């Protein structure tokens, strides 16, 4: 595989990941529904996870598993980002769960999910 191809992939993959993040951020910053905001935040997480995993990729690398099929010569992709992304995903899940429960609470209290109406605390 030539380097021009990788240059192309570079733009495509990182570009996509950043774009996913920006999409999520856009939703979180502009959408009025609390649920959409939570969804936006978790889209940001997904984009981020995508970014992290791709960071660990090496040209021609295999999965970092020394199973019996491994002959000892192939390059392996960097396993650390994968381990980190595992943690990030779990934490993201936890935060999303808490966020959703807060949305339930807010619905109970305000009977609306429209964020502009949930402004009892200000200034």
């Amino acid at each position, binding site marked *: 595989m030539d380097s021009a191809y990788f240059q192309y992939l570079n733009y495509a993959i990182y570009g996509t990941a950043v774009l996913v993040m920006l999409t999520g951020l856009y939703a979180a910053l502009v959408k009025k529904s609390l649920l959409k*905001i939570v969804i936006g935040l978790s889209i*940001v997480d997904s984009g981020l996870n995508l970014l992290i995993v791709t960071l660990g990729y090496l040209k021609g690398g295999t999965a970092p598993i020394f199973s019996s099929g491994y002959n000892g010569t192939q390059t392996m992709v960097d396993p650390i*980002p994968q381990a980190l992304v595992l943690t990030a995903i779990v934490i993201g899940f936890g935060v999303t769960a*808490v966020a959703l429960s*807060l949305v339930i609470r807010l619905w109970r*209290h305000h009977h609306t999910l429209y964020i502009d109406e949930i*402004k*009892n*605390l200000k*200034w």
Partner: protein
Amino acid sequence: MVGTPVLFIAIPLLAAFLIPLIGMVWKESVRIIPGLVLAYLLVLAINLLSYVTVNGPIVEVIAGWAPPIGINLVFNAFSGFLVTIMVFMGLLVWLYSYRFKSNVEYEAARKYFLLLMMLITGSVGIVLTGDIFNMFVFIEITSISGYALTAFYTGRDSAEASFKYLMMGSIASVMLLLAIMIIYSQLGTLNMADVASKMHLMDPKLKAVSFILFVIALGIEAEVFPLNGWAPDAYAEAPGPVGAAFSGIVVKAGVYALIRYTYTIFDLSGAFNLLIIIGLITLVVAEVAAIRQEKLKRMLAYSSIGQMGLVLVSFGIGTKEGVFAALFIMLNHAIIKPLLFFSGSYLVYHSKKKMISDVDGIGKLAPLTSILFTLGAFAIVGLPPFAGFWSKLSFLMAAADSNMLLVIGLILSVSVVELVYYMRVVNRIFFFKRTTSLLTRRPTFNAYVVMIILGLMILVIGFYPDSVSMYLHNAANSLFDKSQYIHSVLTATIQ
């Protein structure tokens, strides 16, 4: 020695997992166990701190892999000092909230104390860890406990505050991870000391971007100005002791993280100026907002943010005296602000909206609480002979030594604003006629004990500042000695 730094994390976690089990059999244990754990941690912290003062930093390796391979915890004069304050404050917060509201039932109490303990553990972890990704994990532990504790009261607008906190927290964690991954992609390591030692190899452009991302991420925790919108809401809506824990413990951890990145890990020259700028903006905006508050806790929250701005400016001076002053301010703030939150929340105990005007003339009905609040107010604005004065003086001396006359002038003008809003409350407490028919509530015995301990500490530090200055000096030296930090971590072995 009675243990090693890892027990600061392991013991509370073990207790956290045990509490639900023991709680099924013995209900009171859900309240008692966290207290025992925190008391043990305090003993541990004091022991280790005195050990570190004599023998130099402790670097603890985890999972048997010496740095930079494994994760490590660093307990040196600087982190040890902060950990000791945090654990001490944690214990006081626990004592204060023990049977805080007697109507808290078993289920709620179990969750409250568990979350409180984990809030403290997370903050301690942020300070102790020597690994940038591990710090992220601890920040998340702290944040999630923080979200839950903010929303603990179901009746109020607490969910709204918590949701704002969560939004900001999520953005912070994204930024933090991005920054960590940029560093990792360049240096191939996550260990702080290792990163610091290799930092000069990094492309300045990437370095700057990752530092900016760190500033945003940690600035949200440290309540730096444009990022601190959540803070007043969270302080005001969280239960009183939790507000105290935020200002006394969590913010300290956030500031620590920011400082660790500025001083040790990155070698950017502009970083100090950035600290001064954002610190000043934070200070001015917060104090100015505080003077127009109508609710007591919001006022205290803004004041707390303002103090953190001052701490950042002080760190931004970049001299040893500046660090000394910053640590002193942090220490004083950790003592005084909880006192204000504790006594303040009793002053407006029965008030629905917690307005400042609800404290009118309460001095006669609740004299001791009022006097303790006044003591705190006098101390935080830096009136001698109370604790806050010495930290303010050391800050000004440090700033004057660096010829920052404009900064001094600005900060002193802001201090006038600070005086005004605290004095307005004190006036209301003692010299106004009671207009509301609200009853006062006698603080519980625990609450009295806690508030009096804090009040005494304010007086002790005020009259005898040398009681703490040695620890502060050691801590400042330890933060300043970057090469020693790197060396002590990278040569750490498994004992």
